[in-house]
């Protein structure tokens, strides 16, 4: 009991409960769950103050006040956590206070802060988190957090504060999102830059109040925006950062400077030095290579298939520095930059000129030279002097060297002569064709028997191949069988043929199914009604366009598919003798340059044919492309809804 009393007394002292506080009026006026019925939290203010040093080191203080609107918000704010990389960043909770709805203010004892390894998946670089347990909150309560940060995401240097200086020493950049999943009443970003530096900045996708003034030896820039509301997303839209308000800042003068730096930092580190073991492996891989393209393909596919994606840290230098080829060759694992580095090392060992490049998978890189990268790839210089992009991370068991799932994507090569920001070209949809061919026979009792074959190329091939490659062999038959069973559960699949899914360099994947379907057609006297499998979306899972919802009449934002694609479907169906057309849906022609569809039936004698061709020309589409895209998908969908009727 004595212990309990002592603990309780200590708690009272440490919590320092008192009434009132500086934000009571602000909180009272801000609104509550009635005003924001669809939101869990209301951010009253979100302020960030950045103080840049000559070295590029930044001291950052962020200050937020968030109000709980409902029980979900209470749960979200019950623990406050921030991630950091201890090799290059430092964070410290300066203050955490709870403003209770009844006016009491509870100061959280920061001694209870938890510092622990962060949850991780696939990349184990020693990232950590710091967390403060706020505890139970009620709607109307608010949480104030003052956080100090210094440092960077990546580390190259390691002396006192040196380890927090960004790898591109003397330079500063930031990407500041002026959007949030919660409503924000006011967001302010303030940065002090040494007078000796030139700051380039642009506010994208909206407007902000901007000011700059001189304060001692710094130029202080302030950006603020009021009443930020959560974005209403559209399905399959591009990344939020492509269309929502954001601020980019950089003291780096141009992309070429970044390119030169990226080249030099890895050359200085010796990332691409070879070893006798690597040279021996390169010789083994290239034994019998036919030409330049074949050599590049062999090495790219070896790195793609044999270096598995799993990141372990090399310690100091992790981040922008690519692991040495010898390390990755021994580990046989790494993240994208290490796989890219392994390929560069092997290409150089084979006599090629090869360099790293950075890119941004999933969203756009805007032209202010702030680091908007999340992915690393390889470039090789061909004998004709042109640079070719290779991505060993995105092409395991894919019949490409550069993934077309990365078309219309920005990249920056780290070249000795420097480079500007580039954008990858559109890949011809014919490079990613899907061909579906069916031969079927409809019997007078309404049953159907026949055979369907699917064959594909490029990214479409990867999707079809994945039906087998991504699963244990014992379920391959079932996986193929499901393609029919999900349309016709009573179908009996008698045979499934497929090519070796791992022999992707030899041939495209080809899968054939032989089947019978009792009760396929609805029979009424001498009338049969049915929808051919080819029109009923067989192999739908490989046709990404059919996953688009077409309810939206128009779009506010650009949208994206996985890849450009061309789908050709043809089925020849033998009908019972003396069949006559009761109702055969006609032809449809829709779309234009961005997307198109043409398909329809022909009936000649007792042979019914269905033929269609759909073309989806890009990965990233503009809003103006949507009518064509939508019409093309709807046209294909319409055939699945319109049955054929024949009379015997």
């Amino acid at each position: 009991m004595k212990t309990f009393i002592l603990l309780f007394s200590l708690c009272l002292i440490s919590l320092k409960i008192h009434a009132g506080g500086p934000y009571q009026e602000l909180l009272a006026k801000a609104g509550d769950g009635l005003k924001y019925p669809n939101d869990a939290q209301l951010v009253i203010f979100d302020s960030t103050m950045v103080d840049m040093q000559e070295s590029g080191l930044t001291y950052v203080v962020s200050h937020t006040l968030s109000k709980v609107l409902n029980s979900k918000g209470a749960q979200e704010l019950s623990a406050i956590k921030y991630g950091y990389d201890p090799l290059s960043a430092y964070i410290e909770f300066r203050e955490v206070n709870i403003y209770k709805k009844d006016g009491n203010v509870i100061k959280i004892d920061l001694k209870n802060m938890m510092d622990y390894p962060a949850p991780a998946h696939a990349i184990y670089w020693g990232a950590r988190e710091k967390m403060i347990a706020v505890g139970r909150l009620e709607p109307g309560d608010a949480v104030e957090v003052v956080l100090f940060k210094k440092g960077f995401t990546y580390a190259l240097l390691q002396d006192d504060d040196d380890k927090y200086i960004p790898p591109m020493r003397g330079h500063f950049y930031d990407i500041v999102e002026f959007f949030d999943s919660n409503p924000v009443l006011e967001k302010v970003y303030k940065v002090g830059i040494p007078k000796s530096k030139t700051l380039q900045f642009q506010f994208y996708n909206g407007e902000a109040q901007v000011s700059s003034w001189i304060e001692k030896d710094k130029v202080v820039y302030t950006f603020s925006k009021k009443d930020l509301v959560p974005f209403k997303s559209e399905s399959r839209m591009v990344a939020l950062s492509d269309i929502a308000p954001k601020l980019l800042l950089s003291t780096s003068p141009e992309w070429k400077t970044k390119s030169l730096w990226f080249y030099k930092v890895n050359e200085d580190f010796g990332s691409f030095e070879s070893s006798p073991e690597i040279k021996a492996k390169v010789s083994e891989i290239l034994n019998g290579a036919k030409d330049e393209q074949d050599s590049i393909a062999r090495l790219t596919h070896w790195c793609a298939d044999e270096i598995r994606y799993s990141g372990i840290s090399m310690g100091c230098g992790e981040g922008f520095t690519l692991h040495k080829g010898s390390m990755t060759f021994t580990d046989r694992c790494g993240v994208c930059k290490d796989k890219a580095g392994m390929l560069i090392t092997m290409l150089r060992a084979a006599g090629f000129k090869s360099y790293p490049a950075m890119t941004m998978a999933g969203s756009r890189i805007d032209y202010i030279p702030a680091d908007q990268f999340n992915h690393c790839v390889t470039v090789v210089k061909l004998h004709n002097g042109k640079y070719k992009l290779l991505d060993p991370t995105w092409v395991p068991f894919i019949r490409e060297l550069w993934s077309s799932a990365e078309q219309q994507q920005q990249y920056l090569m780290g070249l000795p002569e420097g480079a500007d920001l580039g954008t990858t070209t559109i890949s011809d949809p014919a490079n990613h064709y899907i061909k579906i061919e069916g031969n079927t026979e409809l019997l007078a009792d309404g049953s159907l028997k026949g055979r369907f074959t699917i064959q594909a190329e490029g990214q479409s091939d990867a999707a079809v191949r994945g039906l087998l490659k991504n699963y244990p062999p014992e379920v391959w038959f079932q996986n193929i069988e499901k393609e029919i069973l999900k349309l016709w559960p009573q179908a009996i699949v008698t045979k499934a043929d497929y090519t070796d899914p791992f022999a992707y360099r030899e041939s495209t994947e080809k899968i054939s199914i032989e089947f019978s379907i009792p009760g396929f057609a609805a029979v009424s006297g001498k009338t049969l009604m049915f929808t051919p499998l080819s029109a009923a979306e067989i192999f739908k899972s490989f046709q990404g366009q059919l996953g688009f919802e077409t309810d939206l009449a128009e779009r506010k934002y650009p949208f994206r598919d996985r890849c450009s694609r061309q789908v050709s479907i043809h089925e020849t169906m033998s009908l019972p003798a003396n069949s006559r057309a009761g109702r055969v849906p006609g032809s449809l022609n829709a779309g234009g340059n961005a997307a198109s569809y043409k398909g329809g039936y022909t009936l000649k004698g007792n042979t019914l044919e269905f033929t269609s061709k759909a073309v989806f020309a890009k990965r990233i589409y503009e809003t103006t492309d949507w009518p064509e895209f939508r019409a093309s998908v709807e046209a294909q969908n319409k055939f699945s809804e319109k049955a054929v009727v024949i009379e015997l």
Partner: protein
Amino acid sequence: MKITIPFIFIFLLFFVLSIVAQDQKPGSVSSIPSSDAEYLSVLKEYTLNADGSLDYRYVKEQKLLTYRAFQNLYGETFISYNPDFQKLTINKCFTVMADGKKVETPSNAFNEILPSFAAGAPAFNGLRDMVITHTGLERGAVINLDYTLHTAKDNTPAFMGNEVLAETEPIKDLTIKVKVPQNEKLFFKLVNGAGEPRKVVETGSRFSFGMFRI
């Protein structure tokens, strides 16, 4: 020291331990292995120490047969534990590559993380997953792993376990050992199968053995 906690083990036997040929449907590619990997040997050894503390030792030799095996399935080993009362010791960890080259797992391949299920939950913040990233993996490589997890006394209500004698890959040699002091009784049952463990009194030792070897 007199140990008063009960010792209960339940063994569930499923008939998937050895390579069982699936019904081969038409269309199979003969060059594809019938499983992604195979365990050359697995040892699971439970020890109740005289002071009431527990040791769990796990040893495996696992041969990887497919790309899926090392790209998707067995590249990492996750060992969950609570450092407040458990101590993890990695006894051995290396890979023997297909050509026989031995690759010791480097120190940077052992990383602690917070289990994802404990994320954002302050009360469970002390839990840890040790992630072992196995290096040198390729088709034909053999992962060798040997670790011991020591649990301090008075942290479990009993010395007990529940071992399902089945894996998703074939096992050539599975041994489960349960070691208890000779003066203690071990209650155990093998469910869904027949068989008796081999009981051995270790000479010069205070332990008796309960062992399944399949």
